[in-house]
């Protein structure tokens, strides 16, 4: 399959701060490609460079064969974009938002009606076509944005944190639509997320941290690189238990937020039998599971990707950045 996205040595400097430090990657046609990383890793910055919104400081990116700097308009016609923050006009109706989009993208007059119906059907919003967007729920707005992003049949659909801030049920729904899309239109999807379960759905995942890709492969291979099984225990004295496990089994133990200790072993089921028998500190619970992408990230960086724990500073920065866009 041909490469629809080709990126090499892509960098972005904000003054002296290097937000993206040389990204190389290719995406094949029809793939769902995920960008996984914590807040501030450089996901949005990368997507903004790929979609011609900001100019790369260095490196090149090609989409659908067109250069992102010298052939901006051709790139723009080839992509659909769904941003982290809504870009709908909430004072207009769903139909008006879609109709304007048709005009911006020069979709032939005779095709518009049909296309609008088609994309509204994909996201189940047909009956809300004439409603003012202001009256929509967060999930409906997201769906409408996805519909709008599809109107001009883009080759690549970029989604920046498509489900951030939505409740789990709505998140699941949005994913249904995205997968339906891939099946139906064979469209290439490039998305960013900091949710592990979402990254699992992707065909390939690039793990990004501090502006650099630190791993890139299918979720299966990434997880098998961590190898073995993950053991989670909670004990009467976690601090002592942590020390003991690290000494006795020579493995690195991390403490997660819900008072669990997690560590990796080669063969979990065999290990557990002896572990429970010989462990001196009272065990409250023990659990064996396969490594997740979170463990991959932990393995690579020694940190967890925290979900939904924005610090006050992050929030303030987010508010500020919004204005700069």
């Amino acid at each position: 399959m041909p490469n629809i996205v080709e990126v090499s040595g892509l960098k972005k400097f904000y003054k002296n701060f290097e937000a993206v430090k040389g990204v190389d990657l290719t995406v094949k046609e029809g793939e769902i490609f995920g960008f996984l990383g914590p807040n501030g890793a450089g996901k949005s910055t990368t997507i903004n460079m790929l979609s011609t919104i900001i100019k790369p400081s260095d490196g090149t990116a090609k989409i659908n064969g067109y250069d992102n700097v010298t052939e901006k308009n051709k790139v723009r016609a080839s992509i659909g974009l769904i941003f982290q923050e809504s870009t709908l006009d909430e004072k207009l109706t769903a139909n008006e938002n879609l109709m304007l989009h048709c005009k911006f993208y020069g979709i032939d007059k005779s095709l518009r009606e049909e296309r609008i119906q088609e994309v509204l059907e994909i996201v189940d919003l047909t009956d809300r076509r004439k409603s003012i967007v202001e009256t929509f729920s967060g999930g409906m707005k997201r769906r409408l944005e996805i519909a709008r992003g599809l109107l001009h049949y883009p080759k690549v659909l970029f989604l920046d944190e498509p489900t951030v801030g939505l409740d789990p049920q709505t998140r699941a729904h949005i994913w249904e639509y995205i997968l339906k899309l891939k099946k139906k239109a064979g469209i290439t999807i490039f998305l960013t997320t900091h949710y592990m379960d979402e990254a699992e759905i992707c065909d390939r995942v690039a793990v990004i941290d501090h502006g650099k890709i630190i791993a890139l492969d299918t979720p299966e291979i990434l997880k098998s690189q961590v190898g073995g099984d993950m053991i989670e225990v909670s004990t009467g004295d976690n601090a002592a238990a942590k020390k003991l496990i690290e000494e006795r089994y020579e493995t690195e133990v991390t403490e997660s937020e819900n008072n669990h200790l997690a560590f990796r072993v080669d063969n979990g089921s065999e290990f557990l039998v002896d572990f429970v028998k010989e462990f001196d500190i009272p065990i409250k619970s023990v659990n064996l599971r396969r490594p997740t992408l979170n463990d991959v990230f932990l393995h690579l960086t020694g940190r967890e990707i925290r979900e939904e724990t924005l610090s006050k500073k992050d929030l303030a920065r987010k508010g500020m950045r919004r204005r700069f866009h």
Partner: protein
Amino acid sequence: MEGIIAIWQRDVIKFFRDRPRLIGSFAMPFMFLILFGSGMSGAMSAMLGGSNQAGPLADFDFVEFMFPGIIGMTVFNTAIFSALSVVQDKEFGYMREILVSPISRVSIAIGKVLGGSTVAVFQGLMMLIFVPFIGVSLSFGMVLELIPVMFLVAFTISSLGLLISSSLKTTQSFQMVIQVLIFPMLFLSGALFPLNGMPSWMNFIVKINPLTYSVDMFKKVILQPEQMAPALRQAMGLDLSIFNHVITFLEEILVVGVLGAIFVIAATIKFSNSEA
């Protein structure tokens, strides 16, 4: 081309949908005309020494004098505040939808200026509702003449607004800049009182103020000064002149038009260079 129309259309649709703004837009002109205008007219006439006297100055009617100025003010305000939508679109994110589409930056800028101009013309025309109450006689021909003049003024001022908004990121900063700009421009344009016997530095500002020529065009169309007695015309400040040359209607069109061209080109360049 279709891109320009789409951008234009969006601003026009939103203007007509925004009822509170539509109604609110009558508040300022109403207050100026009725409260300020009627309240001041006695004092004005007295100052001119025309209230109890016969002669040409007896015809001086302050409210009538103010009416073209109010139209000018309305067109000016609407046009310059139309650029607020550019800043709002940046804040609320819609600008990114526009900027990542394949329409050129030039089309976006032109569409925005035309949208603002159209809205300002509508708003200006709405002020004609006051005509029956203030004793100005306005023929159908005059209204037809007024529309292109309004459009020219609105176009120039919308371009100025876009130029300002292209370098600003927040609604607050835009509103502040506009407030600082609006009042001197308005007060020193002859919209609210006749500009006679001013200190020379002030006179200088009046003459470089594009609004002066814009307001004077409205006065020439609505008040028909060539049919007035010279003394009255003088008292009403209708003999706008520069270096002792009384400026003609055609020259005013030229001045405002050339300024508009400069503003729209500068605004388009500025807008095209701004990142999303």
